[in-house]
């Protein structure tokens, strides 16, 4: 599970001059097209702001999931380590934000950076001992983390008699009851600008989307730089051939732990955004199924790709809804159509993997190359 089995296109940028970096999926774009591309990106990002409340919320969630998936991509796609336990880091991020907001009275936006630091640290620390484990064994260790998380969040501490408990985790996480959070209202100045521009108050959902967009954009920018840096190349080298990476003087132990930390940080920040977005957390939100969701998103988007994570985020949020819709449209023919949602989702997944064996990013790359070749 270390070297050759890793799918994903061999990043061509490794042997290029970094100055030529501004390329889209391997195709160099002329200046004009580059500008057009950026305008298009900005327009696409802003478009949901003019949709109805639920659509804005949905797009915010897509971005949030994309960030979580990106965390896993950095670990699996770029460093070749597996994790089935990223729901745990998602939970650490979410609960860090919740606890900082509720117990320390911090405003929601100030919790992102400390939550990221906490997640990085917990990922790094988990990564250290886990380093001895390779491939499937690491996957198994992280799986243990995933199934322990919801129960740990409910842990009520040790009974020391008289109904008193010590070391209670539930006391700070809210336990089974869950934790409700304050609504993140938009800042006054932004609201007044929005009011002047559109004649309407800036709704909480729109603000949450903007906030999420900003955080996610910064994180993607960071990931892009990381992957294209010396460190990024070291991570990829470890993935492709740990032995020769070591020979080249790369401290694989530190780099692998750091990759785990960064990956946990990305997924953790997604967790923070999740807490801010839903304003409610419960241990049931962080089950093993959530970890699998990230993995699915990573694979269908293209595990060794940054922007594939966006497609992955969209896929894990929207395809279950689509499956739900298709299942209920069968109501006239079969009993309990809702019970078939999982089946239809599975069919979608199989189809996607067959059509796009390298994920969405791989497919786009092939298409773009074809078009570029013809041009």
């Amino acid at each position, binding site marked *: 599970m270390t070297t050759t089995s890793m799918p994903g296109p061999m990043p061509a940028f490794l042997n290029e001059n970094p100055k030529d970096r501004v390329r889209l999926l391997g195709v160099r774009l002329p200046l004009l097209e580059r500008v057009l591309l950026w305008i298009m990106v900005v327009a696409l990002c802003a478009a949901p702001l003019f949709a109805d409340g639920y659509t804005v919320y949905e797009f915010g969630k897509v971005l949030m999931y994309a960030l979580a998936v990106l965390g896993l991509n950095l670990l699996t796609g770029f460093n070749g380590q597996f994790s089935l336990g990223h729901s745990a880091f998602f939970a650490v991020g979410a609960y860090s934000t919740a606890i900082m907001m509720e117990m320390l009275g911090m405003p929601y936006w100030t919790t992102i950076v400390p939550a990221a630091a906490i997640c990085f640290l917990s990922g790094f620390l988990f990564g250290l001992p886990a380093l001895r484990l390779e491939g499937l064994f690491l996957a198994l260790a992280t799986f243990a983390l995933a199934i322990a998380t919801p129960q740990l969040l409910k842990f009520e501490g040790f009974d020391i008699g008289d109904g008193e408990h010590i070391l209670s985790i539930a006391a700070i996480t809210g336990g089974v009851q*869950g934790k409700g959070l304050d609504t993140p209202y938009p800042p006054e100045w932004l609201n007044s600008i929005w009011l002047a521009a559109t004649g309407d108050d800036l709704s909480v959902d729109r603000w949450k989307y903007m906030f999420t967009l900003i955080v996610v954009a910064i994180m993607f920018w960071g990931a892009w730089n990381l992957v294209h840096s010396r460190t990024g190349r070291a991570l990829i080298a470890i993935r492709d051939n740990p032995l020769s990476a070591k020979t080249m003087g790369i401290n694989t132990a530190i780099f692998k732990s750091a990759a785990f930390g960064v990956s946990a940080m990305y997924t953790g920040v997604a967790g923070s955004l999740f807490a801010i977005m839903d304003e409610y957390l*419960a241990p049931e939100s962080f089950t093993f199924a959530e970890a699998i969701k990230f993995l699915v998103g990573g694979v269908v988007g293209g595990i060794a790709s940054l922007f594939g994570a966006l497609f992955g985020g969209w896929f894990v949020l929207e395809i279950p809804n689509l499956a739900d819709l298709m299942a209920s449209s069968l109501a006239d023919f079969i009993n309990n159509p809702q019970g078939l*949602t999982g089946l239809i989702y599975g069919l979608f997944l199989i189809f996607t993997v067959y059509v796009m064996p390298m994920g969405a990013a791989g497919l786009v790359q092939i298409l773009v190359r074809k078009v570029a070749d013809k041009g």
Partner: protein
Amino acid sequence: MKLAFGTMVAMAALALAVGGAEARNAPGVTDKEIKIGNSNPYSGPAAAYSSIGKSIGACFDKFNAEGGINGRKINFVSVDDGYSPPRTVEQIRKLVERENVAFVFQTLGTPPNSAIHEYMNRKKVPQLFVATGATKWGQPDKFPWTMGWQPNYQSEGVVFARYLMANFPNAKVAILYQNDDYGKDYVHGIEIGLGDKLKDMVVARESYEVTDPTIESQVVNLKNSGADAFYNVTTPKFAAQAISKMAELGWKPVHYLNSVSNSIGSVISKAGFEKSQDIVTSFYLKDPNDPEWQNDDDYKAWSAWMDEYYPDGDKTDAFTVYGWSVCHTLITTLEKAGNDLSRENIMKQAADLKDYKAPMLLPGITINTSPTDFYPIEEWQLARFKDKGWERFGPIIAGAVGSGS
């Protein structure tokens, strides 16, 4: 400033007038239709509850076939949330903001409902008659848009406490409970019911995790405490284990089994009828398996509906009785609301049910709500296990607990 004040008054009056006109009907209400949202675990770990959602749908089918409510048919949009709170948030937001349902009804489970509790109240969309027994659904001052339906777990604890104090005032009580929201709600109930006598009467408490394989050691500890009354707050698997272990130990206290586990099929018959004699429990709905009701008109109406509208349903499944009964409660509320189907009025009518006898409630139990009482059902009748079935005894007992406790 005077002018400004006058303008403000005029504007306020205008706003009121406009607001009044707009508030007449909720979104999702037309002359032909009332759109109602619901989420239910049709898949996932709690899928056994899906028969509640299905029976409610079948019940609305019957009303629609008979012409609907004031000529309006019910469009019941019931979606799957797999008992996962974040999924419930997504689904309910979609129902409220995109499907434009008038309100949501019978969303199922404590964690899923907790996840949307704040949202529904901020949006001022009724979260009516939720399908969970937690006590927190009756807080009209803090959450005026949320209301439960079934008697809450605490009220059952109160009922047993009253029974004990009336018949066994010197009992020594042992408590076994599941260590979660549900178990603690029950324990809190008996604490309220016993009041000052709590410290004298309760001699032992043991808890277990829902993931534990067995509770035998807890039962041994409770027996050794010398208790002669046993408050058994366990889910079906553990309830059967406790009954068996007690028989093995020869421990014969006054045994109260919580209603969560009073199913003959999944608990009593597994533990054995011999070992289960004289266990006490509570009911508020008619048990469809009870031969006493076979000639009852109420039962026959339910049975005929099951045959016609929900033929795949399991007639021994108490959830179908539950769905039938709660569906009628909603229909009655909507009928009371008449042609003013604003969200405010629907909530107001739900909080104004007086002595309403919903079908399949036990004789003597009625639904009562008021603007300060958001607990529709608060009464129970005790039953004792004899031979092969439950025999109800004694009067209807009210277990009302303070709102928001």
